[in-house]
């Protein structure tokens, strides 16, 4: 048992460090984001520039095959890269969905010509992709989606609405799951396409979150035409393709950003309660200890996953607990940090509040973390069924045509 890199891993890490030292921007504060530093417009330009340089140096698409612009490297190299790049301020949220989830779907379902056309451009940041899955009436129950696709000659005509689409406002391309046959059972009437986000009939509207940020969009489709050549998988086979995309999501969902345990410890150390420093208070210490052991437990769990990757094995289910534990804990820690500040905890002006209001921001952003990329409840179902092998819930929507399923008012 040890934590050292193998010779090959150490060599890769050294290469990664050398490149980053020359090409990446050091962090100015623990929670500074790319967008906060550059603003939205300049942020996009700079992100594409960084991504192009990263791709040219062979650090984008580390595990991708070489013929599509990748490095042909190992999953452990990908993890090492993330660790090293995490020490810098790097553009996040621009390319992950395209490179981590959508391109692997193209590798599995697209034609050879398409695979030579799209992934290399995505890798260089020339084209950004978004994932048009969720709908107002289809979130956790994604297969309940209603956006219609009707065949018309060699095209399909799309009408409907998507929601929670990260980055749609800056995306060049998207993948969309549609309902092509409402008479079929719900999972069997779906078809999956990719499309040009500049197609006529697409309208993108930003959603403002409770944190004030706008990471997501609503996307409206009015008679949008997609050539049949951009269909991935068979007609009615879209569910299987969507699952391929979502399976890759579990591999890309990273750690929580924002204040973590060390910052909470810092608040406890520097905050006076009625009887002295918060850090000396028995109740505070117990809460801190509880969160410390969970945070450490997740950290060592990731190391166990890395070990499996390092040996060329497929990691076990251990990592599936990551977001489930981290998101809920981040929310509780943020609320507790504000409690320590007592009445003053309500202040969220970054010029006045401790740590530039990191915890006040976190209390408003963590509800989203517990929902995006699988709600706590869906993640528990997934762990229950895939890890513990428990039976699926009894379904009342299995043996009916989609059009006959009852719908609610929300």
């Amino acid at each position: 048992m040890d934590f050292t890199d193998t010779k090959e891993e150490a060599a890769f890490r050294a290469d990664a460090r050398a490149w980053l030292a020359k090409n990446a921007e050091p962090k100015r504060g623990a929670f500074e984001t790319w967008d906060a530093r550059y603003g939205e417009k300049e942020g996009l330009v700079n992100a594409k520039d960084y991504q192009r340089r990263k791709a040219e140096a062979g650090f984008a698409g580390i595990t991708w095959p070489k013929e599509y612009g990748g490095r042909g490297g190992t999953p452990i190299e990908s993890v090492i890269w993330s660790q090293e790049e995490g020490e810098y301020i790097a553009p996040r949220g621009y390319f992950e969905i395209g490179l981590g989830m959508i391109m692997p779907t193209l590798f599995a379902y697209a034609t050879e010509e398409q695979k030579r056309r799209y992934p290399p451009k995505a890798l260089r940041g020339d084209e950004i992709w978004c994932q048009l899955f969720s709908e107002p009436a289809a979130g956790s129950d994604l297969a309940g989606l209603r956006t219609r696709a009707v065949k018309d000659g060699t095209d399909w005509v799309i009408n409907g609405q998507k929601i929670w689409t990260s980055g749609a406002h800056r995306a060049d391309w998207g993948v969309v799951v549609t309902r092509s046959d409402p008479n079929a059972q719900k999972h069997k009437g779906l078809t999956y396409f990719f499309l040009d986000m500049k197609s006529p009939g697409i309208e993108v509207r930003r959603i403002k979150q409770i944190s004030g940020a706008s990471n997501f969009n609503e996307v409206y489709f009015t008679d949008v035409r997609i050539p049949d050549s951009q269909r991935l998988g068979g007609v009615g086979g879209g569910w299987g393709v969507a699952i391929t995309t979502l399976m890759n999501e579990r591999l890309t969902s990273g750690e929580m950003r924002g204040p973590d345990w060390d910052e909470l410890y810092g608040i406890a150390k520097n905050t006076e309660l009625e009887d002295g420093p918060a850090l000396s208070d028995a109740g505070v210490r117990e809460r801190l200890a509880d969160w410390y052991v969970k945070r450490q437990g997740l950290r060592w769990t990731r190391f166990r996953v890395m070990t499996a990757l390092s040996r060329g094995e497929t990691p076990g289910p251990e990592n599936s607990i990551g977001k489930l534990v981290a998101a809920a804990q981040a929310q509780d820690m943020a609320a507790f940090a504000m409690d320590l500040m007592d009445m003053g905890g309500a202040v969220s002006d970054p010029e006045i509040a401790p740590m530039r209001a990191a915890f006040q921001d976190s209390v408003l952003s963590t509800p989203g973390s517990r929902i995006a990329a699988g709600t706590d409840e869906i993640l528990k179902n997934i762990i229950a069924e895939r890890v513990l092998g428990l039976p699926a819930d009894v379904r009342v929507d299995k043996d009916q045509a989609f059009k006959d399923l009852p719908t609610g008012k929300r």
Partner: protein
Amino acid sequence: MNFDFSDDQKVLRDQAKKFLSQHASPARVRKILETDTPYDAELWRGMAENGWQGTAVPEAYGGAGFGYLELCVIAEELGRSLAPTPFSSSVYLATEALLLAGSDAQKKTWLPKLAMGDAIGCFALAEGPSAPSPRSIKTTVKDGKVTGAKLPVADGDVADFAVVAASDSLCLVDLKGPGVARTTVKTVDPTRSHARIVFDGATAEPLGVGGQGWALTQRLLDRAAVLVAFEQVGGAQAALDMGREYAMGRFAFGRPIASFQAIKHKLVDMYVATELARSNAYYAAWALSTESPELPVAAAAARISATEAFWLAAKENIQTHGGMGFTWEFDCHLYYRRAKLLALSLGSARRWKHELIARVGKGKAA
């Protein structure tokens, strides 16, 4: 990155699992639960034939000379099987105390016997229903004689000698000599034997440097905490497996109860806690096996995490079983009893949490 046990260590774990499934079956555990027999002597002998008691004892003192990682994998299986023996007292505490602070003569006297399972040692720290501390310990040593009352002492009724925590030092006491009165006491987990020991001028041999008793006690508890954490992880996994198995086979409302989200999510909570505890225990195992300066923090984290995981898994296993879960007949209560006993045996989670934050703070200040 190689944060896992080696193939040899995994083979050892599998061998331990197989041996214990035959020789520490629930029926054997129940024999100790339901009779006055303090521990399973036949199992103890079998473990000694496998060389388990001497796993981490150097060959020079009659042990196998393996490391702590080997002891950790055995501990996990002991926890899973609820093996009713004095292993933790004799191996994690008494043997470790001698390895940490014993003179060469003391080591030569006791370690070969401990390693062979021919002698049983125990650690006498608590003095009743309160948290032991340098201020609260009333047992004293004067002119080589120890006076005081210890309660409860795990395996104190069957041990040959005790490592006794006195107010400012540790000492070794032959429990078969004069000035020692032992009575068996009832605890929440009768599968493990406990005693009240009254010392009235019994001969005490100093262990380690005088005046360093509490520091030595802490170091000893840290080491034992790592090993007990593996027992707790093994117990938590067993309780989770048992709850899962029952939920799959028990039908209500026309379907297996394992298909209800209320049960599924409960079992997932048990799984999550157990995995976090396992990962913390792995890190502590690494710290123990390498004598890392991280050990005090890692041991406390492993202790807290494992204590909470085993408790959660044991109590929710009963809940998953419904009415049958709180019958004597079903084995759920064996895990429940052991979970609470282990949660207390090296000091409560409350106390370890305070220690943890103090230790993390020292690390941050350094």
